[in-house]
């Protein structure tokens, strides 16, 4: 007979437990029932804030499709387990469902602590834990201007970011004298505060809220013990968590003095048939407010139910996060509480980096660390700390800035096989090496095989370096040749072309390559030549190198016709120009669509029609939009201060200036910009390669974001810029990217692979670390000075126009191009229609 297993709570840990049990042999011994109080089953609370950047509840869901049905698990959704009767071994729910259990698992999580100050339950006084909480925040932010977070811990700062993103003037009120008092020390806290204040969040420390009352200018007013007051529309409490132990208390299980269901090393409560896991459980006097320890508890219980031995022996509370774009990490004994511990600190006021090492008295072991502003060493330091690896003779060398040529941290090779690489899924280096031996040769394959890297994602860089190191050891050569014709990387070729002054593909091939070339090296070299010399791309010596889109200065569509995209700088267009577009579209019977880049695309042009169409457009004042090139695409703008009641500066004017400045610039991949007139960010600048946002203090520059296949949020690069400095920085960033990126590497991936990352890029562009800035700007000036509209030049060259014919020996057209009508416009006929329907022939 099967036993009945009841799980109370379907949160992150409850679900991890169910998934693990379902995948284990023990699954067949139990009928499994779970109570889920929330209106939806488990979702990813760790990434909850991404709800504000567009993730939906479905995106956050942790439930694989069909999970409950496929595994025969009964789910009571939106039903809270209300009481446990341990004598009769039954659980009864709020809706009246009563289930007899043999084994019971409590995974009830925690709730946000709200300090019982008078007025804490007033309108717009909220917490941050569930999707419903986020919906309430969004609604409250809609009518408010000011938001205040009570609590400057890890979650509080994340909540502050959310309020800021919702467009509120944001404050953080902290009772303690510094931020993140639990995880980081005073020096780190001060640095973090400076950084966060620079982002426009006001931080108040040493503030004790005494009551919340009616506001004068806002919905609420917070009154502090020191007599000060703060007007705020939204109050968000983030003052710590409390375990949800009410149901356990109700049935007489042992509860800790300050709450929490007491468990032993098997995660058993004081009743041997009842387990508790996750944030509701108290182990050795500790509550773990992170997901990885909860997962470890879940694995312990699964092992116990399967009759094997596994003990929960505590968990590491080290964390690495990005708070409001600031890297913060805390490892082990960050506060140096260990007897005799020695402290090493490194502080760089200029680039706002703070690092602290806590080292054992005899200087051989790392006990803890704090990193603010640059957490690149997190992986290495964590390994030193967790695996007790002997420290180098001068431990501070681990946190001092590295100058080129010096060894970089702890190589993955130095790690023992037992070293834990992924804390979320407890994957050791040994397990990863076995997977590599079994044939996983990419990070994605390793993720699929071992699950490492699929939780918080924090271990992926380390995972990658272990992979590369193992592959190298197994004799795989990591081949970086561009293709079989050039045994060089794109960067190498760039330097050869620059240093040797090479101006054509043939010259480069003769000197440094072999064979005839191919569709990989030809466009890559064409792009480098164009970035550096900026010749007309259809010059005889260059034309054979171009992809078809560049050859015909238009984008080939599925049926061999082309699309036409004139430039509309900044998205600003007059009615007259719109009429021209309409007339041309109508005359040539083109399908017309507004693109995602704020301009108009005209589709269905035959090769031989392109010159006539472009002649009309150029005559009317349009220029090529380079939609076909790996080059500047669009600079999206919002309407900005000219019309918008919130606009701080002229975003349209700047967008037009930037688009005109960089149009025609050829680069390793396409480049997109946007400019927003205020932090409401209607132009979505933080999703672009280059993003600019107007603030009261000047322009803020964001770099290396993109949408597309793998969206990346841009990084804040500099703030408070005047227009000239802004442009100088953009010039330098772009040329540095063009010189050093890989073929078809967007700025996002480039930055992620750039040794030293954002800080290094800042050092090069802002501090002129490499002494290159003048040269970078000069190269950009050359490109700008030699700009030409490729279509205009082509229309003036009868010889070039000859190519725009389908047949060079006949005036006939391609009879394979067939359109049908849909919604009043043309589209290519599909194969079915070609056979069955009356076709609309377009002359």
């Amino acid at each position, binding site marked *: 007979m099967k036993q009945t297993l009841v799980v109370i709570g379907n949160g992150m840990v409850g679900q991890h437990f169910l998934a693990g049990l379902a995948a284990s042999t023990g699954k067949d011994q139990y009928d499994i029932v779970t109570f889920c109080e929330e209106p939806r089953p488990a979702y990813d609370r760790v990434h909850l804030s991404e709800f504000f950047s567009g993730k939906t509840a479905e995106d956050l869901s942790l439930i694989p499709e069909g999970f409950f049905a496929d595994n025969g698990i009964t789910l009571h959704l939106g039903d809270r387990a209300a009481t446990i009767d341990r004598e009769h071994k039954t659980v009864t729910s709020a809706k009246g469902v009563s289930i007899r259990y043999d084994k019971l698992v409590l995974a009830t999580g925690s709730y946000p602590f709200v300090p019982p100050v008078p007025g804490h339950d007033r309108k717009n006084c909220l917490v941050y834990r569930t999707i419903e909480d986020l919906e309430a925040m969004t609604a409250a932010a809609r009518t408010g201007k000011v938001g205040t977070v009570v609590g400057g811990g890890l979650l509080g700062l994340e909540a502050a970011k959310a309020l800021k993103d919702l467009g509120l003037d944001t404050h953080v009120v902290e009772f303690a004298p510094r931020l993140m008092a639990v995880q980081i020390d005073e020096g780190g806290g001060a640095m973090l505060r400076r950084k966060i204040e620079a982002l426009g969040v006001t931080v108040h420390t040493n503030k004790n809220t005494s009551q919340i009352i009616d506001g004068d200018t806002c919905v609420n007013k917070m009154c502090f013990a020191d007599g000060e007051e703060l007007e705020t529309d939204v109050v968000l409490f983030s003052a710590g968590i409390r375990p949800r132990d009410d149901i356990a208390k109700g049935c007489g299980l042992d509860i800790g003095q300050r709450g929490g269901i007491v468990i032993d090393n098997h995660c058993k409560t004081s009743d041997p048939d009842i387990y508790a896991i996750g944030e509701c459980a108290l182990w050795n006097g500790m509550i773990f407010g992170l997901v990885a320890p909860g997962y470890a508890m879940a694995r312990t219980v699964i092992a116990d139910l399967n009759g094997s031995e596994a003990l929960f022996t505590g968990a590491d509370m080290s964390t690495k996060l990005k708070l409001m774009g600031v890297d913060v990490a805390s490892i082990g004994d960050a506060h140096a509480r260990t007897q005799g511990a020695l402290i090493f600190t490194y502080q760089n006021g200029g680039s706002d980096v703070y690092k602290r090492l806590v080292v054992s008295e005899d200087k051989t072991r790392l006990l803890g660390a704090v990193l603010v502003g640059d957490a690149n060493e997190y992986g290495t330091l964590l390994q030193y700390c967790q695996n007790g690896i002997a420290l180098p003779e001068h431990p501070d060398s681990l946190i001092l800035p590295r100058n080129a040529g010096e060894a970089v941290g702890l190589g993955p090779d130095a790690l023992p096989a037992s070293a834990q690489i992924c804390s979320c899924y407890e994957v050791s280096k040994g397990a990863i090496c076995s997977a590599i031996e079994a044939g996983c040769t990419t990070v994605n394959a390793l993720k699929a095989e071992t699950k490492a890297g699929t939780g918080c994602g924090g271990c992926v860089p380390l995972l990658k370096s272990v992979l590369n190191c193992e592959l190298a050891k197994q004799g795989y050569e990591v081949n970086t040749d561009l293709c*079989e*014709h050039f045994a060089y990387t794109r960067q190498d070729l760039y330097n050869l072309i620059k240093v040797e002054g090479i101006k054509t593909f*043939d010259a480069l091939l003769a000197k440094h390559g072999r*064979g*005839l*070339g*191919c*569709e990989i*090296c*030809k*466009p890559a070299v064409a792009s480098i030549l164009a970035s550096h010399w900026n010749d007309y791309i259809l010059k*005889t010596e260059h*034309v*054979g*190198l*171009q*992809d*078809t*889109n560049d*050859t*015909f200065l238009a984008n*080939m569509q*599925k*049926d*061999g016709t082309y699309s036409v995209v004139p430039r509309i700088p900044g998205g600003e267009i007059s009615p007259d120009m719109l009429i021209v577009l309409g007339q041309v579209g109508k005359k040539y019977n083109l399908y017309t669509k507004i693109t995602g880049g704020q301009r108009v695309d005209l589709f269905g042009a035959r*090769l031989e029609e392109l010159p006539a169409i472009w002649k009309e457009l150029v005559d009317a004042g349009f220029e090529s939009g380079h939609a076909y090139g790996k080059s500047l695409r669009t600079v999206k703008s919002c309407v900005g201060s000219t019309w918008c009641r919130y606009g701080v500066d002229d975003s349209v004017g700047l967008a037009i200036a930037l688009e005109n400045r960089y149009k025609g610039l050829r680069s390793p991949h396409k480049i997109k910009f946007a400019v927003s007139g205020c932090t409401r960010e209607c132009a979505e600048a933080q999703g672009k390669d280059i993003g600019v946002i107007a603030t009261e203090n000047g322009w803020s520059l964001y770099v290396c974001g993109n949408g597309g296949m793998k969206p990346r949020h841009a990084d804040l690069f500099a703030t408070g810029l005047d227009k000239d400095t802004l442009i100088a920085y953009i010039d330098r960033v772009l040329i540095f990217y063009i010189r050093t990126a890989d073929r078809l590497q967007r700025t996002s991936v480039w930055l992620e692979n750039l040794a030293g990352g954002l800080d290094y890029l800042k050092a090069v562009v802002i501090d002129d670390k490499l002494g290159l800035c003048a040269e970078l700007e000069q190269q950009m000036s050359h490109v700008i000075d030699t700009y030409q509209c490729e279509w205009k030049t082509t229309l003036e060259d009868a010889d070039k126009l000859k*190519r725009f014919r*389908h*047949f*060079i*020996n*006949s005036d*006939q057209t*391609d009879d*394979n*191009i067939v359109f049908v009508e849909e919604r009043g416009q043309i589209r290519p006929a599909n*194969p079915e229609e070609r056979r069955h329907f009356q076709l609309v022939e377009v002359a």
Partner: protein
Amino acid sequence: MTIWFDVCAVEDLQPNSGVCVLVQNQQIALFYLPATESVYAVHNFDPFGLANVLARGLIGDIGGQPMVASPLYKQHFHLTTGECFENSSVRIPAYPVRIDNARVSVGIPEPSV
């Protein structure tokens, strides 16, 4: 039997690139490699993309074998055999080319009876 058709002058060709000619109602892509003084002819129809576009593809070599890459989805075709490098069961028609007195002619197989 192969029948030869005069299609164009050598100077009508595009160095290191392709053009398309109409011969007997067939669309034929011609590629010209001045480095080796060679001209190649294959059918213009891309059997994967189902469009007449191969003349607009990039040319070069794979392991020394001359090829054109389709501009649509980048499959490679051998310029003398027409065989697809990615899938040898796919083969496009390839034609012999002759150059005489700076004129280009293409050989088309006589339709078999």
